[in-house]
């Protein structure tokens, strides 16, 4: 046993797959210990907040201010406010004004603003320009004036008695706060989803639930497949014929159709994560059953099995001690693949709208489903769906690598 495990860990593929898998598993276990926020708490008012660090504005005004004189602060501020559209519009006006195109660099904020301030004249009429367009430039000019001012912003508080605004302080353009001194800062590494939930926390929880679904589905499928395969292969005769008939039926009927029909039949209320997992297990045992049967048939007449029979051991004893150890490596490999395909099946079902209907736990498929319903992919909200896809791909990839690695260890013909 020890030797086998050593051998397994010498396989590069297995080790890579195993490391990825353990890393995912550790994240799922450790993350909730550090970040204890409930994964499905709706924190954002609005959909799809971008990933980033969210600093409380109110608190940062109240925090101690420090003056830092940074040269490029003003330029950065303006560059941030000045959109691409505005830059193109400025270029258009300047060119219409007669400035050669190669002298205008709209990426260089400072220079382009300089040219604008020097050349723009609201009274000037440019031939062929509509009134609406001219008004647009007037508005643009006014907003730029605001940007270029060097004064700070006043903070005013409403007087409770008179209702007048009273200035309580001024935030200068060179004022900074230390983020560590702001009491309320929330890191949203993957932003929020369509409900305003923290995607990262939700994703970790969902990965855990999906892994559980995978395990339950995989174990169910493997147990059914193993039992049927052992019975069919070892007993043979009519039992074998019957089991093989059922197996062949389920081989050709596409599992997705069965999954859809069964999960639709269960109905929305009863469709919890665990039920879905069992249903997936019930529709994917076919391959294990076939392969186990094939191996058992070849083992059935080996000398050691016959010897065991002659010694009067019971069928259960023979199966447990003389047959199972020989197919154990195969069954473990099949289990790994079943877990991976269980996770994929849950995701596919959820996309169809037939996934677990729970409000307490997220699954990877449900996260994907919501992202699709809210069209995250069209709106460019990559953080709502891309991490989910990558997580699913990493889980199934790591499991398949482990499987391939094991295959090479236990199946000498495949060794390179």
């Amino acid at each position, binding site marked *: 046993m020890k030797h086998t495990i050593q051998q397994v860990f010498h396989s590069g593929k297995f080790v890579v797959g195993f490391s990825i898998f353990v890393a995912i598993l550790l994240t799922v276990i450790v993350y909730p210990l550090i970040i204890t926020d409930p994964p499905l708490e709706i924190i954002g008012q609005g959909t799809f907040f971008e990933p980033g660090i969210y600093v409380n504005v109110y608190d940062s005004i109240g925090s101690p201010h420090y003056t830092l004189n940074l040269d490029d602060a003003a330029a950065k501020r303006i560059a941030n406010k000045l959109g691409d559209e505005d830059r193109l519009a400025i270029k258009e006006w300047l060119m219409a004004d007669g400035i050669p195109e190669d002298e205008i660099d709209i990426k260089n904020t400072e220079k382009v603003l300089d040219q604008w301030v020097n050349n723009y004249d609201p009274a000037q009429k440019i031939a062929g320009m509509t009134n609406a367009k001219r008004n647009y430039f007037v508005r643009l000019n006014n907003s730029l004036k605001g940007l270029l001012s060097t004064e700070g912003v006043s903070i005013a508080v409403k007087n409770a008695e008179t209702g007048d605004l009273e200035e309580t302080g001024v935030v200068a353009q060179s004022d900074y706060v230390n983020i560590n001194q702001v009491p309320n800062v929330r890191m949203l590494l993957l932003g929020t989803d369509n409900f305003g939930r923290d995607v990262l926390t939700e994703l970790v929880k969902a990965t855990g639930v999906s892994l559980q679904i995978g395990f339950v589905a995989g174990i169910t499928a493997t147990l059914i497949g193993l039992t049927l395969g052992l019975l069919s292969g070892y007993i043979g005769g009519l039992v074998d014929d019957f089991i093989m008939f059922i197996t062949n039926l389920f081989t050709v009927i596409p599992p997705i159709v069965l999954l859809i*029909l069964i999960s639709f039949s269960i109905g929305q209320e009863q469709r919890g994560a665990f039920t879905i997992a069992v249903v997936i297990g019930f529709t994917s045992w076919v391959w294990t059953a076939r392969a186990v049967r094939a191996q058992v048939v070849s083992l059935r007449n080996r000398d050691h099995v016959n010897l065991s029979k002659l010694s009067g051991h019971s069928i259960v004893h023979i199966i447990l001690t003389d047959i199972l150890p020989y197919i154990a490596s195969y069954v473990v490999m099949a289990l790994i693949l079943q877990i991976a395909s269980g996770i994929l099946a849950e995701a596919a079902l959820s996309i169809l709208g037939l996934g677990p209907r729970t409000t307490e736990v997220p699954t990877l498929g449900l996260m994907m489903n919501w992202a699709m319903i809210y069209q995250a992919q069209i709106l*460019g909200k990559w953080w709502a769906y891309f991490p989910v896809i990558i997580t699913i*791909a990493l889980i199934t990839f790591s499991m398949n690598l482990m499987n391939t690695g094991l295959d090479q260890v236990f199946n000498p013909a495949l060794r390179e």
Partner: protein
Amino acid sequence: MKGYRKYFLNKLLWFLVTFVFAFILNFTLPRLMPGDPVAAIVSRLAQGLSDATGVQAIYQQYADLFGTNKPILEQFFIYMKNVARGDFGFSFSQYPRTVADALKSSIFWTICLQFPAIIVGWLIGNTLGALAAYLKGGFDKVLMPVSIFISNFPAFGMAVILMVIFGVTLEWFPTSGGYGFDLIPNFSWGFIWSVIVHYQLPFWSIVLISIGGQAIGMRSMSIYELNADYVRYARFMGIKDRKIVGYVFRNAMLPQVTGLALSIGTMVSGALVAEIIFSYPGLGFTLYNGVMGQDYPLISASALIITVMVLSANFIIEILYGIIDPRIKAAQAD
């Protein structure tokens, strides 16, 4: 020829048995659903209707129409008779449209999309796998991990990523539908071009997901064959490498043909999800609409048609396999 006929009849019988079984499953499973679908429709229709006898009359009318108030065995025979006539009843969610009408066009779209995509994916995958086995070295080292990764990539993930890259960011192809939403199907160039453009993303996402698994299978089959005794013997005999490679790949191909028959069910499920992501007007999308609308005649009929399509594909592949592989004929003649 006698051996082949036996093989053919055997496969045909098996096709019929699986069909009957699938038919029964299709009928029973959705009807186990708790809750009364007719009641659901009536409650939707009768909103704002305070007259209890009026609601009762509507309920009775729909129950008669869908036949849900009869015993289940009678429903089964009615269903069987109707299906034989191509009548799947009315769709719950799109009433008064019939299910047959809702499915008619989607079958066409699905066959045109999935059949070529799966074949192309299978061909490309096998070629790559064979090349990896034969060339070894760098090509193999790169192709294998990529294939394993792609074959484990969820089908919807591939579809979404292709959509984001080529549809949303680059805007080369439209992101949804089977043709421009402003067009009426006809035989003009504009329409055909629109269909071709809409076809690309779903097609390639299905091709890409089917490549990986096939390449892995073909590679290990080819490696196995390349180490077989007959290859060594042929080498000793001084037969040219190219000729040997020809034999090897012909032999390695055979299990891949059966592999296609066995994996077609899985491939179709991936393709159905791709259809949903791209809102392609095929069976997958219709099924999705059925699920969303709690429309069990539609779900049942789509599931039945998908099953029949997969079973037929299986049947055709196995018949072809019998023709390609002479050993089948020999085995059946014994």
